[in-house]
């Protein structure tokens, strides 16, 4: 039986980044520059991905603009018919670097913001002047005409400003905006007490998004990502393990999601040794949680099993100590008490951030 091909390739070009956001999706152990794939290998990876049926490539990081070969990679993606998306902090973006990307055929840019206001934004990024650079980046992108998505990661220290974030996105001329509550694994889990909102804060963010969706219908698309600690059911992480996404790490490891390097007792396949198609089809890392055969109870007999695919494997590992367990955020999961206790133990005052940087985890 042949597995349907992936839709998207997440190309994590580097873990280097000028920002140090405490909820970064990168693994706690960051890959150093000397181990990064070279340009030719990334081009081969894109050739293989396009041949398999991948439709979109997302250039991510770290900060992908820290790679000087980014325009070459974008041009290569366009040449093999891949829709290209740049996921950037914007702090390295200037008229010259943007023009090079536009000329190479970049289709879309997702620009991250840490807040609607400069001071708290710079504090989360741990970089003075980052917010101002992002505002300038947004203006340059809109002036160039490349469609722009703004991404805001939401947590207890900025949740009250979600209405201001939506207004900022509208004012800057974004076509899409993502209001994404922090997900709690890796750096986010390390900083959970500093980031996890309470129920009342969550409700305010949901209300702000609902109002903006009505107001901006047909003009701006708003995606909302809930903090799954407060969800009844788990999220269908990555659209199902090994079903829609392939993630290639800076060193060339091929993963079902960006956090999968935390999974123990399994080999991580590499683009240096095996073809993408072979990895997708046969690598144990991809087959181990694909579909429903691996599922324990209560997932095995749950009617939602092909909607949420058992939730997030990395979260099951991080919280329940077993990547093959039901996601503890599910109210039916035997380990759900872990999530309830984490919410109950949330301190009144948020502790200091542990910033994401080499060697700080």
């Amino acid at each position, binding site marked *: 039986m042949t597995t349907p091909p992936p*839709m998207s390739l997440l190309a994590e070009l580097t873990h280097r980044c000028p920002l140090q956001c405490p909820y970064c999706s990168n693994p706690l152990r960051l890959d150093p520059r000397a181990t990064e794939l070279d340009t030719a290998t990334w081009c081969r990876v894109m050739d293989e991905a396009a*041949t398999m049926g991948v439709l*979109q490539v997302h250039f991510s990081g770290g900060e992908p603009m820290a790679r000087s070969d980014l325009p070459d990679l974008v041009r290569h993606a366009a040449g093999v018919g891949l829709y290209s*998306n740049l996921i950037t902090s914007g702090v390295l973006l200037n008229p010259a670097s943007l023009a090079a990307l536009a000329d190479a055929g970049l289709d*879309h840019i997702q620009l991250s913001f840490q807040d609607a206001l400069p001071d708290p934004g710079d504090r989360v990024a741990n970089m003075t002047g980052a917010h101002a650079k992002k505002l300038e980046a947004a203006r340059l992108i809109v002036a160039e005409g490349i*469609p722009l998505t703004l991404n805001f990661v939401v947590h207890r220290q900025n949740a009250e400003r979600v209405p201001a974030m939506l207004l900022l996105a509208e004012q800057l001329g974004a*076509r899409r905006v993502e209001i994404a509550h922090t997900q709690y694994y890796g750096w986010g889990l390390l900083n959970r007490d500093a980031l996890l909102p309470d129920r009342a804060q969550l409700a305010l963010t949901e209300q702000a998004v609902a109002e903006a969706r009505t107001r901006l219908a047909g*003009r701006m698309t708003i995606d909302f990502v809930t903090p799954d600690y407060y969800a009844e059911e788990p999220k269908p992480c990555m659209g199902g393990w090994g079903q829609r996404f392939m993630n290639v790490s800076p060193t060339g490891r091929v993963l079902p999601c960006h956090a999968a390097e935390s999974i123990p007792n399994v080999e991580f396949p590499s683009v240096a040794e095996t073809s993408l198609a072979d990895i997708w089809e046969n690598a144990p890392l991809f087959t181990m949680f694909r579909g429903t055969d691996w599922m324990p109870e209560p997932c095995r007999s749950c009617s939602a099993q092909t909607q949420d695919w058992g939730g997030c494997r990395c979260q099951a590992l991080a919280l329940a100590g077993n990547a093959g367990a039901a996601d503890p955020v599910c109210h039916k999961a035997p380990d759900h008490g872990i999530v309830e206790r984490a919410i109950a133990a949330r301190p009144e005052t948020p502790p200091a951030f542990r910033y994401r940087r080499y060697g700080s985890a």
Partner: protein
Amino acid sequence: MTGQTVPALMTEDSVPRFARGTRLQYDRVRETWFIQAPERAFMADAIAVEVLQLVDGTRTLAAVIDTLAEKFDAPRKVITQDVLALVNDLAGKQVLVHA
């Protein structure tokens, strides 16, 4: 405010084009047409493919409708309904804009 205004409804007189960052693309592996858009790709059904292949930023929708009515030997009224429903749906999704 920059950028967004509520798009005017597309009529037979309108000339649509793909917004930058969106396109119609044939997927040889799945043998299906997709509309590629920012961070999503949606499958295009048979009617959408016929219409969107005629969207070039110069043709009016009236011309698109005439072409399809002739090609499929179908009543113009029926084709008109299908075409206007489709393009206005895609305009709402920011895939098509007025040229």
